[in-house]
């Protein structure tokens, strides 16, 4: 007992000494939040800022990180390269931050990531899915840059895992060959589904301007697969699924977050499943706590995926700082690589390219609403 007291006193003294020993005593840890509060996607920016600030407030209420309070510096980066670069330079050079949470859009996150690499500042983007956010032009990983969202093709693997869990043995894939997003998901699904024992009974491509899917759907009806994978955007999904009903096609369709739109025709798409980053209906306690906390903080608002991912990104960053034990970007980046954190959007670890490995939610479309079904790890 006594020895432990001595050790803690010594530890506190050591901390105080080290704090006093520096030229400038650091009393706070500064975290910059770069969010598109104006520009093309201001609602994304507001959700991102609110989610990140909520995480910081929770840490401060618990005593901060490394015994220091956390100071948030919010800048508007407008989802546009030039303002994003200006904001990143300002927070790094003037405010001397070592950590950036942001941006939402890949086209703003990529130029910020170059500044972060050059000035040795840790950046974690909550929602930018472009591979080049965390990768250099030569394919090597940027040492200081991470993201909290999974990249697009990952959803294909999650969909395959869900399909296997549902007991589906055969699948038919429909994809737009001219769309990288759709093709990436389709290929990832095909690879993961066949690797886990499923078989593909058909694979057909179409183009984005097609409206008549009757020829492909007649083949689907003929092949009688257990499910159809259609990882396209909601407008194509609306057309395909309305026509599928006329072919007497009853097997479930499945897609990715391209389905996630208020304009999805829920009547036509009834019975379909899609993967997404997060659902506020997820029954895990951490999600319920996040949703109720967010509502209490922001006048009853229901957090969307952007708020959830910004919350996760900020928590990941602060957990990495805590784990590194020092307000030092290089050590924090190393700690982040080895981190395993239980976040709202699933338990997150990072792969070699600084993309998170985590679960995705599977949602089901019913005639009047979207229902959370499962949270699936690939």
């Amino acid at each position, binding site marked *: 007992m006594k020895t432990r007291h001595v050790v803690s006193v010594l530890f506190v003294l050591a901390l105080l000494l080290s704090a006093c020993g520096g030229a400038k005593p650091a009393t706070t840890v500064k975290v910059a939040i770069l969010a598109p509060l104006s520009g093309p996607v201001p609602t994304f920016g507001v959700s991102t800022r609110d989610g990140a600030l909520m995480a910081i407030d929770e840490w401060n209420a618990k005593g901060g990180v490394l015994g220091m309070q956390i100071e948030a510096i919010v800048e508007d980066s407008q989802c546009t390269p030039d303002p994003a670069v200006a904001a990143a330079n300002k927070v790094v050079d003037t405010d001397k931050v070592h950590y950036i949470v942001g941006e939402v859009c890949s086209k703003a996150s990529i130029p910020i990531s170059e500044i972060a690499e050059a000035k040795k500042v840790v950046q974690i983007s909550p929602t930018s899915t472009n591979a080049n956010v965390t990768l250099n032009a030569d394919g090597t990983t940027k040492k200081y840059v991470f993201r909290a969202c999974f990249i697009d093709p990952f959803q294909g693997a999650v969909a395959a895992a869900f399909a296997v869990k549902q007991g589906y043995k055969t699948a038919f894939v429909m994809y737009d060959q001219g769309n990288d997003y759709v093709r990436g998901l389709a290929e990832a699904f095909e690879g993961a589904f066949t690797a886990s024992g499923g078989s593909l009974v058909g694979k057909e491509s179409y183009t984005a301007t097609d409206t008549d899917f009757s020829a492909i759907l007649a*083949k689907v009806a003929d092949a009688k697969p257990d499910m159809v994978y259609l990882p396209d955007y909601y407008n194509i999904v609306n*057309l395909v699924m309305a026509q599928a009903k006329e072919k007497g096609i009853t097997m479930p369709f499945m897609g990715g977050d391209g389905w996630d739109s208020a304009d999805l025709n829920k009547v036509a798409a009834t019975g379909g499943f899609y993967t997404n980053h997060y659902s506020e209906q997820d029954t895990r306690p951490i999600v319920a706590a996040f949703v109720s906390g967010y509502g209490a903080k922001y006048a009853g608002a229901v957090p969307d995926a952007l708020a959830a991912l910004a919350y996760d990104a900020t928590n990941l960053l602060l957990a990495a700082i805590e784990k590194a034990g020092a307000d030092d970007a290089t050590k924090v980046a190393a700690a982040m690589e080895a981190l395993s954190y239980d976040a709202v959007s699933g338990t997150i670890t990072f792969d070699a390219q600084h993309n998170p490995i985590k679960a995705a939610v599977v949602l089901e479309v019913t005639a009047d609403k979207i229902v959370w079904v499962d949270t699936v790890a690939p």
Partner: protein
Amino acid sequence: MQTNLGQAAPRTFSERMLRGRWIGKVMLVALLAYAAWAVGRQAVQAPALFMEQVKNGLQLGFVYAMIALGYTMVYGIVRLINFAHGDVFMVGAFVSYFAISRVNLHLWLASLMPGLPEGLSLLVGTVTVILLAMVTCAFLAVVIERVAYKPLRTAPRISALITAIGVSFFLEYFGALDFVFSPDFITYQRPFPVQVWYIKGGIHPLVPGSEVPAGSVLFSNIFIIIALTSIFLLIGLNFIVRRTKVGRAMRAVAYDKPTARLMGINVDGIISITFAIGAALAGAGGVLYAIAFPSIVFWMGIIPGLKAFVAAVLGGIGSIPGAFLGAMIMGQAETLSAAYISTPMRDAIAFAILILVLLVRPTGILGETEREKA
């Protein structure tokens, strides 16, 4: 050395070889033979699926025919390729959308006489919606003709063509404004519930959610409405052109405008009527297309318009039976190549057929070899 501009008929074998039309013939025969082999091989294995695909091609062909007729009629009478025609088709689809989703026009009879069978009142309601779209499009086309084409009737033909492209863009991007049609995809509400039947040893209604027996051919009330409407309108058009005074005047104006005028025909009036009839058909086509493929957007007319234009050229532009034949060929070529050869290649195959047919018959399948009138 004699300058031969290709007017004289080739006399010798070597001259014929040099002229090169045989290359197109050989390629056309090769392509058709390959397509017939690729389709036929699989059709024999699964005849019901083949019938299903042919039906899909018919449905598409009927809609293309509705648009192609307007292209061919307008070209026949004023030698103008009316590129705004596909956008008139789009307006037809949107008019029916507003009539159905905002005004509930398809329910007017059901609300007036609730005792009637639902099927009958919805049928009358659907026909009313189609008629409204036809009238609106006819009116729109007459306005377009008066404002944009008539002042250019004596201008070089290229001016009218460029104007037509301008009108097309205007209709698209005016439609894309938030307070007009909006730039978004809009889910189209069908004016009647879909009912599907399957044919296997008789016709049976398909219960939603139940399995379709293997080897059956499906058809829906959507297909019936599309087929009946387009056949009815085609017969009506044929009647107008062949049997009425207006039709005779149209043919006279198409044949020789100055002489028709000398004979006391109101040439401008007849041209307006031609535009109106063509646009009315496109408007009906727009409604049918939206019912079949229920998601509409302001640029939805571009691709079907282009395909229908190709169909009109394939059949022989200026020829009404040619437009119908061309549309049927386009519908089958697209659907069968998607079904049996390659989905991404389907447009390539459809257009390759067009090019090869034109190499062999530059005036199209049923087009007349006519001399340019001075």
